[in-house]
């Protein structure tokens, strides 16, 4: 065991160059959603970095304790965005999670999900297709405006959640693979819908395709796409992550295109930022291939505004719409003006800004599963801000945020619809 810990310390020590930049000023406390709930130093970036430093110098023998603290993080990047020293907190946390979680071992459930299912896209799709058919037996509608469901029975995984049901038909069945040439739009784009849009929000994917077709762009949407890999990476399963990267890379490399677009903030940030960041152990040519695809990857809102320059603002009247900044768009990709510009281009929309629009909604992927109580407390603040804005619709650019916000609003009985920005923009066409 001691030898093992020594090995772990050695691996962690390789992150030292990044960790040493933390001057322990504590400014991360001001923006960390988890710290604002727990008020414990081990839950904020400064504390986690201090623990990792201590573990790497073998001044602490409590690897399990460090793992717990490390996993109790939304990976929202608020700390990194607010850090005076520019500490690359997410780099440290992702890499440390891989190191510590590999050392501590993956749970049987995670192994089954990531290694047995997620890395086998065909099987993953079939399992969820079957689940979609039978979900009505166990669930019932919770809120018709939002379209959420809750459990009919006492199901531990679901608990009190109001979740978005699996779509009757996933996007890949509604819109089979596409490979078209560009028209007047000039560009040819690849579209990566991601798991959540494919399986839960196919209407978002359809809205994106409507927009792309309207602007006469060539579209490459290949069959057999796999998950972007973030769930596996966030749990420290680098092996599954690598498999998913490779699978997607091979599919998208088959054709030429100008941009790889996604309508999921998390997928965009993962492909654009995390794929290259985690490719250090690959061959030079593989690193180049990953970097090339990452460089082409762009959020669809950003593409519409910055590349196509489509969003002319109008004085909108009608539905009051507010906007939630997904962390992966605002804090990782610095994309926050473009989705607002698209919303403001809809004449039937009166845009209202909510307070703390860029405060994390509390989803954090698997954080929501492991720390639902905390996730819900953080989400409640988001819900309160949405309600206080007086909006009838809350728009955002990340399907994971849509799920979390739907849960929070639905549990409070709020009649506020949750939509993707592209759905609202598509209505103008």
């Amino acid at each position, binding site marked *: 065991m001691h030898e093992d810990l020594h090995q772990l310390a050695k691996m962690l020590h390789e992150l030292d160059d990044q960790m040493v930049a933390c001057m322990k000023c504590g400014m991360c406390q*001001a923006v960390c959603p988890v710290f604002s709930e727990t*008020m414990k130093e*081990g839950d904020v970036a400064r504390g986690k970095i201090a623990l990792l430093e201590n573990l790497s110098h073998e001044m602490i023998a409590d690897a399990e304790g460090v793992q717990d603290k490390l996993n109790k993080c939304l990976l929202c990047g608020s700390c990194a965005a607010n850090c005076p020293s520019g500490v690359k907190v997410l780099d440290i946390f992702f890499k440390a999670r891989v190191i510590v979680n590999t050392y501590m071992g993956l749970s049987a459930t995670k192994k089954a999900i990531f290694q047995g299912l997620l890395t086998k896209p065909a099987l993953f799709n079939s399992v969820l297709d079957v689940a979609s058919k039978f979900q009505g037996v166990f669930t019932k509608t919770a809120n018709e405006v939002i379209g959420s469901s809750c459990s009919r029975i006492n199901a531990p995984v679901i608990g009190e959640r109001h979740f978005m049901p699996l779509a009757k038909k996933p996007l890949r069945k509604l819109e089979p693979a596409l490979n078209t040439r560009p028209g007047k739009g000039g560009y040819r784009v690849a579209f990566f819908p991601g798991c959540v849009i494919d399986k839960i929000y196919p209407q978002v994917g359809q809205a994106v395709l409507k927009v792309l077709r309207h602007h006469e762009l060539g579209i490459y949407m290949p069959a057999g796409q796999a998950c972007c890999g973030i769930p596996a990476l966030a749990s420290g399963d680098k092996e599954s992550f690598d498999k998913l990267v490779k699978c997607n890379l091979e599919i998208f490399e088959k054709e030429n295109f100008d941009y790889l677009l996604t309508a999921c903030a998390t997928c965009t940030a993962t492909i654009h930022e995390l794929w290259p960041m985690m490719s250090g152990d690959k061959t030079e040519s593989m690193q180049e291939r990953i970097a090339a695809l990452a460089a082409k990857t762009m959020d669809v809102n950003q593409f519409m505004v910055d590349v196509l320059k489509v969003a002319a603002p109008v004085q909108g009247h009608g539905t009051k719409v507010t906007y939630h900044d997904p962390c992966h768009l605002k804090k990782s990709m610095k994309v926050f003006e473009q989705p607002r510009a698209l919303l403001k281009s809809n004449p039937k929309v009166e845009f209202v800004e909510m307070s703390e629009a860029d405060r994390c909604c509390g989803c954090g992927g698997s954080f929501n599963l492991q720390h639902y109580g905390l996730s819900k407390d953080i989400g409640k603040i988001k819900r309160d801000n949405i309600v206080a804005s007086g909006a009838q619709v809350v728009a955002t650019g990340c399907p994971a945020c849509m799920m979390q916000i739907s849960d929070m609003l639905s549990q409070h009985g709020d009649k506020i619809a949750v939509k993707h920005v592209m759905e609202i923009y598509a209505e103008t066409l």
Partner: protein
Amino acid sequence: MISASLLTEFQNLLGKDNVLVSESDRHAYSYDAAVLDAVVPELVLRPTNSEQLGKTVALCNENKLPMTVRGAGTNLSGGTIPTKEHGVVILTNGLNKILEINEQDLYAVVQPGVVTAKFAAEVARRGLFYPPDPGSQAVSTLGGNVSENAGGLRGLKYGVTKDYVMGVNFWNAEGEYVKSGGKTVKCVTGLNIAQLMVGSEGTLGVFDEIILKLVPPPVASKAMLAEFDDINKASETVAAIIANKIVPCTLELLDNATINYVEDFTKAGLPCDAAAILLIEVDGGHIALVEDDAEKVVEICKKHGARRVQMAKDAAEKNKLWEARRNALPALARARPTTVLEDATVPRSQIPAMIKAINDIAAKYKLQIGTFGHAGDGNLHPTILTDKRDKEEFHRVEQAVDEIFDVALSLGGTLSGEHGIGTAKSKWLEKETSKATIIYSRRLKKAVDPNYLLNPGKIIGG
């Protein structure tokens, strides 16, 4: 060692979730923003009301446990890190209520764990003003500010935390409740214990309630940036502005090294060839008077050798000017892995001598040092850029810091303008004051904390 029965007693008092026992939990309380070695506390205790706080202190005293009280842990002189084995950290962030904001009598009563910026915003919402604005205000707590006598950018005109403390109620080492000061503007009853508590860095009592003075806010302000080819001329300008009976709310200086680091980082268009820049803001209760002051300041700057003075026309331009100052530390902090931010303060007239000495020391020890700070009150922040893992270089840093403080004292200055003494600067205390001062302070400490348990090792050592 803390016994199992005492642990249970703390858990019964505070609730299990507010008694941190695991190694990973406790380790996260063995540092603050100062780069110093510390001891890991044996327990971290988080009371959430006044009664719990008093009983916690009493229990620690009964069991002879050294107590380090901690707010947000933003301390820059090691005041919030434990120095003794088998001690506890008492966290105040569970005591975070603003108990009263009295708009008629212009005071507020707060618990120590209230975050400074939240308090200032709440006060501002009611049309009032709490001026102390330490750089860490977004997270630092009022209890910590009072303990350390924190300052900020507005110190020149508005003073530091001590100028706003009207009263402090606290638990003494034995868990008895002590009241000092009050809610009236005039209050001269008894010993002035409230002011004794300000800057005492947790060595004399544990704050329970703090009474703070509020003031009306300024209604107008004007900001400008003045460029100088000679840092001496910039310093002369600082003195001349004050000599002309104008007291700006903020008067900040950035030296050439800092200007260049900031420009590299922000690309804001700062004059990289300038020897120094001054960022000046005047404020007041009437726009015409403020504009008049601002014009006079421009004249004084030009008369004393400013090659260019840029006046902000509107709020956006003002904000752009302040970006340079706000980015001074971030820009310096990104240059090298470790940043040692010091707090040497000298009389205004000695700023040129102090900056020259800092640059000489940087050259002597082959170190990168950027200097910026509150020139208006002589409070400079020489910031040493280093890598604490490089033992040889870090040793030179320590030698340089020693010399910087020696020079500050020889110029009639002080060890700390706003960061406190803690463990980092206690060795110089006698040099600035006297042996008798140390003895007097230790007698005082012994009298009110006979077991020497309240933040031992800080300010006066021991």
